[in-house]
């Protein structure tokens, strides 16, 4: 690695970027124009609009059913409001109000208190969603309050008293926050989000151009054939992106600062004693550098992977979207940075910024944030270098994805890419359609979900692709001993998985409302036991096994035998859309995948799945026995000793299963 050559690449890229008018416009010129325009424009517009609205005033129908001196006093007060126009109340006032010819109706009535003193009941009808409604609400409340105070004074003076007597509580509030801190808490919500988005947009402006652009313009080959090492090229380009990301942030902050300052001075707000927190900005900038490097590496790897700029831009979109969603936490008032959150990229920086802005952050959080971001950064850089050294990626050609092409070429269809596409679509269907069905009516919802969303699409695709159902889904019978063994495996496996979920419960406690919901699901009083078993054990066993072990497994049968097992298990666990059950289901998924791999028969995994679910139902149905209930739900009385016989039994049965299915191994890999 020759750093000076990386520097040559860096200097040239910077020169080229600065020669590109569009890049310069969007990173440097635009912010200088945009912020003053937005701030000064918007603030002057707002001042003008408010004045205009007050001038427009409002038309109000006024009814006075009391008609005495005091009510007249109230009406006189109301009529002091400028630009308000009153018409006498009539029968058609309501329809006028409906047609928005008048904006409010005020009715004055009276009632007598027990003591015989009259109370004026003033009802104001208005529409708070309109500008006039808000205006009426503010102005009328103000004058009526004044009128009320004066009337109180009059009544008290009739008894020879002053208003001092009703002044029972005098409240003074002392706000110890400095104007500095107030500004900080305001900026703390907005700035982190803004900075992170500026950082990534600045990076994305140049990233696509740097490698995908070179591919598009056919200059990459020339560059690679020069005697520069590829790592030097990557480093030079990487530094270019970081520089542009930081330039974008600096330019924007600079322009934002001056626009805000001039807006504040124009609006005449009292801002003496408020200094812009420059030292906090220094901390922010230091924390921002690792994130800039992470974005640079991620975007550079996207740029390297893409065939052209257009492709790079479309791959960048999801990254931008995820960053946006993560960065937005700074707007949430209750979330504060802790050691755990300090390890999550983007969220950590966003929350750290927020803490820094109110000068209330811990050094440990700063260090954790920087370190965890740098660790991810290293991975992203390694990935980029790897991509940059992969000839398949650098000289990638178009892929024909026509359905006819895929139909002709089954192996092409069963690739991880299509597997993931199918899975994501199924997951979306489950999330949007399935949960709606189940929310309406649980039993029919579950039935429809399993059959229409899980099973049917697989069968449809097999038909469209003209694939053989039996061999593709491994609808192969197996020796009877296997079925017996699976039953013996399922019992200790279920026990162990339950223990594991209890263990997780100790670390991340499951909310009790959630547990209740779960046991309700397994305990449907309107159904008979066999119906529950069919709905919750047999049906899912058939449908889900066909989808995951039968179909999705096929897409990942490349390379190591563990690859399809682990991937299908992970996707299976994710499909349950339940963070508390992720690990237990993942473990079951791995075991199911292994059983399939060994037996080459989907019936084996269906039987396992059905047995496992049936056990869960039986325990919740007949688990009223005290020991069982404790075992299932109460972590204090967990029967840990059970894990020992369960482990022994599981190991033994798995060993026998393995021995019994050795010969089928070769048949599988074909």
């Amino acid at each position, binding site marked *: 690695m020759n750093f000076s050559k990386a520097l040559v690449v860096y200097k*040239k890229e910077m020169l080229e970027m600065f020669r590109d008018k569009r890049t310069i416009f969007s990173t440097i010129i635009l912010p200088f124009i945009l912020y003053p325009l937005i701030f000064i424009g918007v603030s002057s517009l707002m001042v003008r609009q408010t004045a205009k609205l007050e001038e427009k005033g409002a038309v109000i129908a006024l009814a006075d059913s009391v008609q005495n001196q005091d009510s007249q006093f109230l009406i006189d007060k109301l009529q002091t409001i400028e630009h308000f126009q009153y018409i006498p109340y009539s029968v058609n006032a309501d329809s006028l109000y409906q047609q928005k010819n008048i904006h409010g109706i005020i009715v004055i009535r009276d009632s007598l208190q027990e003591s015989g003193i009259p109370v004026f009941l003033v009802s104001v009808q208005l529409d708070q969603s309109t500008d006039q409604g808000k205006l009426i609400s503010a102005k009328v409340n103000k004058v009526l309050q004044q009128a009320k105070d004066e009337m109180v004074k009059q009544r008290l003076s009739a008894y020879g008293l002053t208003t001092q007597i009703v002044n029972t509580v005098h409240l003074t509030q002392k706000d110890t926050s400095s104007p500095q801190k107030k500004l900080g808490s305001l900026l703390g919500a907005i700035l982190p989000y803004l900075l992170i988005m500026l950082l990534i947009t600045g990076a994305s402006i140049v990233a696509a151009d740097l490698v995908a652009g070179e591919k598009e313009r*056919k200059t990459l080959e020339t560059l690679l054939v*020069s005697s520069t090492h590829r790592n030097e090229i990557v480093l030079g380009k990487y530094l270019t992106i970081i520089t542009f990301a930081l330039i974008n942030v600096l330019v924007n902050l600079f322009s934002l600062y001056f626009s805000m300052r001039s807006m504040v001075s124009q609006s005449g707000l009292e801002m003496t004693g408020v200094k812009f927190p420059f030292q906090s900005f220094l901390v922010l900038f230091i924390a921002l550098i690792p994130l800039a490097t992470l974005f640079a590496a991620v975007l550079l790897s996207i740029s390297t992977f893409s065939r052209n700029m257009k492709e790079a831009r479309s791959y960048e979109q999801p990254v931008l979207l995820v960053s946006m969603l993560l960065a937005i936490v700074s707007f949430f008032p209750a979330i504060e940075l802790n050691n755990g959150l300090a390890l999550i990229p983007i969220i950590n920086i966003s929350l750290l910024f927020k803490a820094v802005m109110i000068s209330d952050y811990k050094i440990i959080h700063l260090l954790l944030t920087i370190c965890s971001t740098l660790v991810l950064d290293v991975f992203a850089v390694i990935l980029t270098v790897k991509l940059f050294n992969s000839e398949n990626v650098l000289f990638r050609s178009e892929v024909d994805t026509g359905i006819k092409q895929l139909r002709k070429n089954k192996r092409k269809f069963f690739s991880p890419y299509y597997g993931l596409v199918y899975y994501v679509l199924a997951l979306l269907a489950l999330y949007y359609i399935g949960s709606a069905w189940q929310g309406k009516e649980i039993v029919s919802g579950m039935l429809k979900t399993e059959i229409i969303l899980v099973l049917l699409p697989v069968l449809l695709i097999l038909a469209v692709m003209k694939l053989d159902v039996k061999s593709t889904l491994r609808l192969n019978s197996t020796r009877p001993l296997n079925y017996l063994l699976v039953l013996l495996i399922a019992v200790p496996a279920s026990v162990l998985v339950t223990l594991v979920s209890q263990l997780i419960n100790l670390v991340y406690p499951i909310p009790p409302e959630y547990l209740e919901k779960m046991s309700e699901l397994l305990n449907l009083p309107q159904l008979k036991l066999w119906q529950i078993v069919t709905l919750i054990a047999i049906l899912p066993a058939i449908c889900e096994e066909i989808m995951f072990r039968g179909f999705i497994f096929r897409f990942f049968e490349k390379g190591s035998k563990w690859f399809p097992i682990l991937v299908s298990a992970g996707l299976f666990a994710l499909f349950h859309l339940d963070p508390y059950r992720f690990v237990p289901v993942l473990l079951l998924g791995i075991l199911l995948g292994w059983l399939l791999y060994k037996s080459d028969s989907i019936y084996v995994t269906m039987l396992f799945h059905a047995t496992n679910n049936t056990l869960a139902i039986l325990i919740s149905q007949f688990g009223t026995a005290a020991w069982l209930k404790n075992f299932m739900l109460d972590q204090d009385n967990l029967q840990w000793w059970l894990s020992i016989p369960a482990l022994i039994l599981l190991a033994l049965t798995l060993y026998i299963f393995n021995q019994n299915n050795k010969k089928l191994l070769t048949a599988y890999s074909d």
Partner: protein
Amino acid sequence: MIDVIHLSKTFPQKDGSLLAAVDDLSFSAQDGEIVCLLGVNGAGKTTTMRIISTLLKPTSGTAKVNGYDILQEPQKVRENLGFLSGDTGLYNRLTAREFITYFGRLYGKDDNYIDARIETMAELLDMKDFLDKKIDFLSSGMKQKVSIVRSIIHDPPVMIFDEPTGGLDILTARHIVSFIRNCKTQGKCVLFSTHIMREAERIADRIVMIHRGRLLAEGTLEELREVSSQQDLDDIFVFFINRETSETEVKANEF
């Protein structure tokens, strides 16, 4: 000089099958010699040249450039190699001088050396007028001259031209041809590829014919004429292709 030794390259296709783009190919090119890699589109010319210039790694076999093995010392290979292809793009936002200087620096040359070399080459190729203009504003002939200087800025002993005249007009193509000849007179080893028979006829000292990644025939034009008893290179080429296919047909019949 270039030595290609039992070179093979297979590309995995999306359906899992393998495509042999280069299949056990061996040939060599000496210093002061122009060797033409001749074949139809898709014969494996570009893949072979990309392997020699270390852009791709061979599946098996190897090649040597000026004695340096492409697998053992790829860095040395690139230092000793100038590479020019017909469809090379240029950095349009740089001036011609900046562009050439950039590559000179990437080859580790100092600025004095680069400046002097640009002066000499600009004189030779009549480039003085547009040396400091942005590449974006240059004509395709001018661009090609810039590319030529770029490829030879580090004065490499071995030059590789991948379809160098592809897509160029006659006048620009002539520049290239005279440049290739010029390389030869300087004692450089030149390997160039084309699918245009006339071009091979005019420039090459020796012709290496490849078809479907395999060596079809190799020799001077005279030698090839003798073996095939054909005059025109087009006919010679077709002769060898027919011979190859009939051989494979015979082989197939043996089974």
